[in-house]
């Protein structure tokens, strides 16, 4: 009778051993995969890594940066130094940190900021070549996607911020864009990003995050002259950029919206039409069509608004802003059957398969392109 339980235990132990999952990857494992060009497994692993590492520390004891950051910063010197391919490896580590910062589970947000700042310190010692250029383009986009305007443009010196590292503090004091500019002074996207930082500072509700329709940031009557002056200054910064063909389309789009915020419909439509004429980029054209339609609606030209919203919906089928504004405009025009069809099509679609609505990310600048720019960066590291 006694042998049976023993045998059962032994069998259970054997089964347990034979089916035991491999140990979960560490930061070092994932960095090695990343360096070898096995990006997808490394990116998948990052998502599991975050939960495991963060759960090691009680919530109240967590510090910005956390154990992942500590591990990565401890591994990095050995990974880079004294290696014949040190320059490339430096960017590999910096790119890895950017991807890690983009992992949404990497909370709190201060941890993500600190990672980018640390990575900037690592990357900035690389030669100013194309891979580093790609790194800066991606890093600016990552910070924009987080709405990290003070990290990009530099924060208030008097602000009390719990800095994680000296890199973190340096980034906050001087602004990430200043480092990008130092490495690549002629890149116009830094000036575009700076204008977006300035534009964000003029917001009522807050640029970034959840984003409503175009009227959310229109200046109400009674707006202070100081605030109007700030909006006009942001407008002037974007207008200056429209002369550079490399960023003219983006700049014109922002010029159009800033005119709308000031209630200047004719100038807005002219700028937005110009933006559309400069690019085939569907998200940008979508935003321009949405904003032209919205300007038309403010002037009571409902039929024109409907036409523009339809054009936007053709650029990015399933885009929520265009669909909702189109359905509403059709309703106002008494075309209720078509309004219902538009709404049904939108809300009956699977939200997880719906395209990212470009307007919802308008304020993020290149943040909408962060994933693509990170992919470019990885491609350049191979």
């Amino acid at each position, binding site marked *: 009778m006694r042998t049976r339980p023993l045998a059962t235990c032994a069998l259970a132990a054997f089964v347990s051993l034979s089916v035991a999952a491999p140990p979960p990857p560490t930061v070092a494992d994932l960095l090695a995969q990343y360096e070898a060009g096995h990006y997808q497994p490394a990116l998948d692993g990052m998502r599991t890594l975050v939960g495991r590492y963060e759960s090691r520390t009680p919530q109240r004891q967590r510090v910005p940066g956390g154990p992942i950051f500590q591990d990565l910063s401890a591994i990095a010197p050995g990974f880079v130094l004294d290696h014949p391919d040190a320059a490339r490896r430096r960017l590999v580590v910096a790119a890895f940190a950017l991807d890690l910062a983009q992992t949404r589970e990497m909370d709190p947000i201060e941890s993500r900021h600190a990672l980018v700042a640390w990575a900037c310190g690592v990357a900035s010692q690389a030669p100013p070549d194309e891979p580093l250029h790609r790194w800066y383009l991606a890093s600016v986009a990552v910070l924009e996607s987080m709405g990290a305007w003070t990290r990009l443009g530099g924060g208030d010196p008097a602000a009390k911020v719990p800095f994680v590292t000296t890199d973190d503090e340096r980034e906050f004091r001087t602004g990430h864009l200043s480092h990008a500019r130092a490495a690549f002074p002629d890149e116009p996207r830094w000036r575009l990003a700076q204008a977006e930082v300035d534009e964000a500072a003029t917001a*009522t*509700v807050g640029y970034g995050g*959840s984003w*409503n*329709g175009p*009227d*959310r940031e229109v200046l109400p009557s009674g707006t202070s002259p100081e605030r109007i002056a700030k909006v006009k200054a942001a407008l002037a910064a974007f207008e200056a950029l429209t002369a550079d063909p490399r960023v003219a389309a983006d700049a014109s789009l922002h010029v159009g919206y800033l005119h709308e915020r000031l209630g200047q419909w004719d100038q807005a439509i002219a700028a937005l039409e110009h933006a559309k004429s400069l690019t085939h980029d569907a998200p940008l054209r979508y935003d321009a069509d949405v904003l032209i339609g919205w300007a038309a609606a403010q002037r009571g030209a409902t039929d024109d608004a409907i036409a523009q919203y339809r054009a936007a919906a053709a650029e990015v089928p399933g885009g*929520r*802003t265009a669909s*909702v*504004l189109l*359905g*509403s405009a*059709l*309703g*106002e025009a*008494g075309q*209720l*059957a078509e*309004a*219902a069809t538009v*709404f049904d099509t939108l*809300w*009956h679609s699977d*939200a997880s398969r719906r395209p990212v609505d470009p307007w919802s990310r308008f304020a993020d600048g290149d943040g909408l392109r962060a994933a693509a720019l990170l992919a470019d960066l990885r491609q350049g590291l191979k």
Partner: protein
Amino acid sequence: MKRPVTLVVATALMASAAWTAAQTPMFRLRTDIVFVDVSVTVDRRPLEGLQAEDFSLTDNGVPQRVDDVAAEGMPIDVSLLVDLSGSVVDNIEAFRDDVRRFAALLRPIDRIRVVSFASDVHDEAPLATVSGPMVLDFGHGGGGTSLNDGLAYAMLRPEDPARRHLIIVFTDGFDTASVLSNRRIPDLAQHSAAVIHAVLVPGHASTLSPLEPGARDALIEAAARTGGEAHTLSSAFGDFKRVFDNFRASYVLRFKPTGVDPSGWHALTVTVRGPRAGSAVVRARRGYFGG
């Protein structure tokens, strides 16, 4: 509400048939007929038994003759719009039962549709008559609140002239994720034939942002413009039932506008004549858009 003049005659004939079944025999071959939902209460109880001659109605200030009054016989479409964001619905199971019990009260001629909203908007149950326990998921909660977008979805639908449309919105009245701004909602409500009632759940101050309080005000204003009103939650089932019972006991006035420009906005006023006029509270939509 005015059925748009673009409605085809066949639709009008269909409406006529339904009206005929419920009320006195008549034929309508023209579509420029206006229907107005009117609630008349005394001490918050429906005042029943009123006839066409008991109402006084003006269209853009011009007195109109109320041709007929329909009441309980007309079929009703109910759109139940449910806020699944945050902690509006504390107990999904209990709320699901409340909705099912409410749906079971509807008559065979009535229909119900259930729409939920959080970050997104979902059809929980398509518009249909109730033929058994409703299958309700309510599994799309959490995240942001798209009250305004959900309301537009429920409001802006083609009318069936033979039916009345009641929208009951169950929400704390905050909006954080809609494309449509708060200020658009009352205006859009004027393009809908539906009557909106809001059952408002007390909100949580910690969720307030500069945008959010305005959404509650916009919803209340939208309800008022359609002839509905806002109610503070006491119990979901009880509130839904009370709103529906009162709506069913309200009137639909029919008139053919005369002496007014058919196009543009038509401001309406409706009052009750006679000895009960002083104590009666009359709610009607504030106007309609002409063709």
